């Protein structure tokens, strides 16, 4: 029962931004393509820029909750796969479609002098990719990474125009890896599950240079997800059981943002985001004892990743249509950090154009609610023969993601 509850609450991870990072963690975040770091004005300030908590109404607390529903279409692959001795073999396939639900929640306390406390519950990283096709299944029958972060933070108002904040990141994560080469004549299979509780920190700065011109900067530390658990490795139907672990990083990131408001109605925000994916150099599965000799090269040899730091540019537009209705739209261009030579079926990522829109309706003095939608369009990506260390040669197409969020905010 615990597992059912857990899945319902947290949903399964997705990869709708570059690699497995998920930046859209609130209603406004979804509607604005996560561009509102300089101008966050509600409970989700606790996540996007906790320094902005200092500039919220001193006498009010804020709480926001919501759900994001995610649809991940199939990724098409047209191409070939290199297999030792057999050379390149046909490998056309499409991945499984995925549905997921991701909850989010944010809270900001009333001011305590110049101090203020907030907390966010989010899923900042996630990935799920399943292939049932013979070749791809041999590499990534299922790759799954889920995370949940509790992020308490404290802001301090230095002056009426300048505030800083710091927070702690407590991250729980679960991972699962399955691969099965039997359908392509290679009798090797892996099942692995692991989890971890770990942590990091975040820092934030907010500067209101003018009443209608705001700057923001945030930094999130790297968090290594060392998923510890158990694994079964099989040759044919004969398997052995191991304790196992594998580490994947949630990389550090830096956001620098500016927001300009016109006539108190229209706010345009721009954001530059640098994600330090270069910390992801190798994927190294570790086992508590020597694994079967024949499987060492397949399941124990560290897999090169050598990802590169990536850039994301975000643009958000907020328009106060009336006292009750706020309209929002966003756009982002998101670079993939994954070089061609280490791209894999578990995450055939590519550069993306992200479009989003949404609204927030003010029901009364305390309650507002809204809906947002985001479309993540992934570029197709081609790999020539001999370019890829995993032996992939062909073209990944389609994929991407469609997300719909609904949420409410209560001010009291």
């Amino acid at each position: 029962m615990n597992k059912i509850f857990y899945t319902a609450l947290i949903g399964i991870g997705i990869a709708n931004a570059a690699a497995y990072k998920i930046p859209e963690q609130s209603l406004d975040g979804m509607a604005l393509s996560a561009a509102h770091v300089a101008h966050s004005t509600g409970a989700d300030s606790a996540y996007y820029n906790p320094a902005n908590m200092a500039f919220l109404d001193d006498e009010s607390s804020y709480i926001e909750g919501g759900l994001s529903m995610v649809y991940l279409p199939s990724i098409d692959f047209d191409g070939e796969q290199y297999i030792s001795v057999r050379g390149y073999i046909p490998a056309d396939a499409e991945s499984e479609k995925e549905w997921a639900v991701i909850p989010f929640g944010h809270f900001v306390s009333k001011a305590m002098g110049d101090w203020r406390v907030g907390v966010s519950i989010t899923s900042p990283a996630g990935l799920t990719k399943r292939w049932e096709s013979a070749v791809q299944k041999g590499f990534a029958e299922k790759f799954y990474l889920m995370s949940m972060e509790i992020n308490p933070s404290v802001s301090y108002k230095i002056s009426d125009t300048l505030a800083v904040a710091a927070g702690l990141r407590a991250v729980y994560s679960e991972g699962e890896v399955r691969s099965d080469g039997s359908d392509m004549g290679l009798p090797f299979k892996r099942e692995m599950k692991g989890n971890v509780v770990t942590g990091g920190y975040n820092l934030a700065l907010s500067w209101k240079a003018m009443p209608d011109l705001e700057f923001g900067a945030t930094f999130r530390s790297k968090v290594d997800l060392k998923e510890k658990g158990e694994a079964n490795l099989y040759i044919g139907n004969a398997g052995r059981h191991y304790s196992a672990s594998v580490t994947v990083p949630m990389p550090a990131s830096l956001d620098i943002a500016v927001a300009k408001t016109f006539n108190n109605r229209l706010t345009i925000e721009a954001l530059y985001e640098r994600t330090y994916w270069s910390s992801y150099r190798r994927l190294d599965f570790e086992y508590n004892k020597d694994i079967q000799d024949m499987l060492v090269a397949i399941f124990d040899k560290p897999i090169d990743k050598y990802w590169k730091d990536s850039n994301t540019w975000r643009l958000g537009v907020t328009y106060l249509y009336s006292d009750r209705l706020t309209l929002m739209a966003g756009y982002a261009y998101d670079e993939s950090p994954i070089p061609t030579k280490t791209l894999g079926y578990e995450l055939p990522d590519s550069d993306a154009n992200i479009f989003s829109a949404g609204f927030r309706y003010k029901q009364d003095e305390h309650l507002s609610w809204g809906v947002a939608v985001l479309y993540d369009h992934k570029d197709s990506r081609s790999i020539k023969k001999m370019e890829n260390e995993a032996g992939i040669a062909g073209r990944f197409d389609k994929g991407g993601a469609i997300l719909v969020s609904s949420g409410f905010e209560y001010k009291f």
Partner: protein
Amino acid sequence: MKREFTLLSALVLVVIMSGCGATVSEPDNDKIKGGELVVDFPANLLKQSLIEKGLIEADGNTTVFGYRGYLIEYDTTNENGEKVRASGLMVVPSASGLDKIGKEKLEYMKSKGFSVVSDDHGTIFAKDKAPSIVASMQNIPDGSPIMLTSLFGFVTLQPDYIGFGSSSDEYHPYLLKKSSASATADFIEAAKKFAKENHIPLNNQLYLTGYSEGGYVALATLQKMEAEGKSVTYAAPMAGPYMMDRMAQAVLSMDSVNHPSFMADVAYAYSLAYNKDVSELVQPPYNSMLDTLFSGDMSIDEIDTALSKEVSGEGGLFTDKAVNGVLSEDGNFWFYNALVSNSTAYWGPKTPTSFIQCKGDDVIPFAMTTGTVDLMKNIYGAENVNAVAVEPVITGNPDTTLRLGHSECAVPAYYVAGSIFANIRKSTIGY
């Protein structure tokens, strides 16, 4: 605010406590009665591997069967007649990875039943070298069953012996006839029962073979089974020390030996079996090292390094009492008597038996084979025994000058034995 934080804390707690996704159940190996599947390797990959190693032709005409290995535990008895839980490996030809022709061939074999080869392995000292342990640890084909099962299509049985596998808490009764034979004969019975329970079709053919220590054990098993009135189709012991007294005399009359581990283990195991002080046979400081050296944690190289290569005298391995008693054939010396009574050469098998060995054997002289055959024929009236030299068979030249040592001879010797068994099966069973 306190209320909100309480709610959030509760939420965090519930989420973390409900995380139960770090475990996977034990491997879902095939559910079988009385054993465990430890190797399941497809024919196509095994064939590819054999071609790459140059062991079979790359023309694609050789049928290589899939390889399914089962670990089976069974009860046997040690030298004192006490019950011991032992283990062994049973390897069965499988259809996994076979092409259509191969599958048809396998189905025909199944319809006639598989013939069984009991193969006793050679000397090992480290516990992780036992057949069922290697199979359980690596999950891949290993050793003689590759030839006997995947190439010749036999069901291969490999007992671990007492002292290895499931009985690794016991000492290994090295070259002790009674328990060595029981460990094999009981495993054969256990394997037949396992096959019946798991619908593995066997015919009534049983072949016995083994190399080095395994040759000795195979012959001991044949003697036991004949004495018990059990039928054996054919036996092919290979390169075994069948005349233990003569073997010991040969070793103890030398100034030095390259592998003192073998004779030291004989002294160690015989002392334990006959409840004697090993100091009668092995000199200090080596006598006090034997429990450690033969604990199953050390390799042959480590043991050989730890022991003196000088056979006797000051600083030598064996006592004067041991050397003199064995060389003088002292009938009052328990060790000499034990060597004689544990020899497997002094009887006449009724089962057709070929003693296979390389003429160039550098550990056990080829004369051990010819001498055993002569004894069995001339003294004990055996009619169907013969000696087969490996080198002339594999070269097709009776006058070949090729000579293979004890280690190099193992693979071709198994090929010769497998060929003999396969020819008999072909003429009797039809495949």
